[in-house]
């Protein structure tokens, strides 16, 4: 947890980006963390193959909130093809929190939701 003490990360936890929901998303996916049952809902707005907006919501822990905030920031403005290439490890590197195995599952919930959302696109 020392890592999340870093101001920047704690600020994201307390003031996450893209938290909430949008009107008429192109796609909306909810995903549960199998370890604890926590749920993250991810909404995407897609125009001409570009993700123009992304929002997340749900009852989640700090790691899940930070991960969702970072991932949504990262994908906004990118094309579906670019986003499909993102690997889970890329996200873990982006959030850079030195997570234990159990907390990696917290960070991954939003990533699984994104994968589900992109499956049929």
């Amino acid at each position: 947890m020392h890592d999340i003490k870093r101001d920047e990360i704690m600020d994201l936890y307390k003031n996450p980006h893209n938290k909430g929901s949008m009107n008429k998303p192109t796609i909306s996916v909810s995903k549960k963390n199998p370890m604890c049952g926590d749920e993250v809902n991810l909404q995407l707005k897609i125009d001409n193959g570009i993700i123009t907006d992304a929002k997340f919501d749900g009852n989640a822990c700090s790691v899940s909130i930070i991960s969702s905030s970072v991932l949504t920031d990262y994908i906004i403005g990118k094309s579906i093809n670019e986003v499909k290439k993102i690997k889970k490890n890329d996200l873990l590197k982006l959030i850079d929190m030195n997570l234990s195995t159990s907390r990696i599952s917290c960070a991954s919930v939003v990533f699984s939701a994104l994968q589900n959302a992109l499956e049929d696109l």
Partner: protein
Amino acid sequence: MKDVRKDFPILNRTVNGSPLIYLDNAATSQKPKEVVDKIVEYYYKYNSNVHRGIHTLSEESTEMYEGARKLISDFIGADNPREILFTKGTTESLNRIAERWVPANLKRGDVILLSDLEHHSNIIPWQKAAERIGAEINYINTDDNGEITIEEVKKMISDKVKLISISHASNVLGTIVPIKEICKLAHDKGIYVCVDGAQAAPHLKINVQSLGCDFYAFSSHKMLGPMGVGVLWAKEKILKELEPYEYGGGMIDEVSFKNAAWAEIPIRFEAGTPNVSGAVGLGAAVTYLSNIGMDNIRNHEIELSKYLLEGLKEIKGINIIGPREADKRTGLISFYFLNIHSHDIASVLNTLGIAVRSGYHCAMPLHNKLNIPSTVRVSYYIYNTKEELNTLLNGIKKAVDFLS
């Protein structure tokens, strides 16, 4: 109670630079040296298959295995050791009854009564068994204090109820359930009672005969014994009529190319090579517990519960669930904060060397019913101290300051 901490080598280790404070005993307890030594001794001196050979090692190994059965039989006040079946834990014990006893004794339209505080392992086996035979499942509700009252049980009993399967103690609320009264009520109506004792056997003095239940299931690893072994106790009369759970070596009387006849109980329920070292380890664990005295263990836990309940109440924004009275609980307290996730509290505590559980504790229906988020669960045992609880309380305050 005598100082037992020196008997637990793991308590000497540090976690993240601080002495380990282990408060996740409802998940699994630590093991005293006596138990680990016994298992080592078994493998170094006696290891051999049981009930098979006529050589010395096989006889000694069989004696140790059956000796453990006797120790456990005495520990829970069974009529005789034939009523003790070794399983791999409470989950398997409950599955055995659901898989074998239910289809032979229940029919379409019958009701299995559970309660809303059950662990998933005392829900799912019954759901599946009921599904197969067309039986129904109903739930007894806990009251506002997290208790199961006899009035509520009475309300749920009908002519259709054939089995009540209920925890002796809740792994989330800590509530001790009035099993004796439930059994009396049930037996007056010809209803069988199965008890999930996973959270009770480590803490309460169990006497299956005075409780009056028909089945009692518990796990070794929560009561100082090794993992991978547990017990299903059932009345001899029931076991004699019960179909074996698995078929194979060791459980037969006679086998031909066409069919087989079963060995006597309990051997007929233990096909294949059993977990002998596990049973021997559990035997050592119940001996250790008996030497300390279950009454002393209970008093120690009530004292810790009182102390912790008082301390937790001081923390701003905390919501404690389960009975308000320490003597209505086993050794655990769960709580939550509305705006701080339980995993985050547990993570901060972990940086201080404190091990607690966070999440739903395999009781998702209960959390959903109470409409509460996941909880932090602090569960203590014979080796925990008030000093450790002080460190915990300071840790929780620190976590709350940091996270809110």
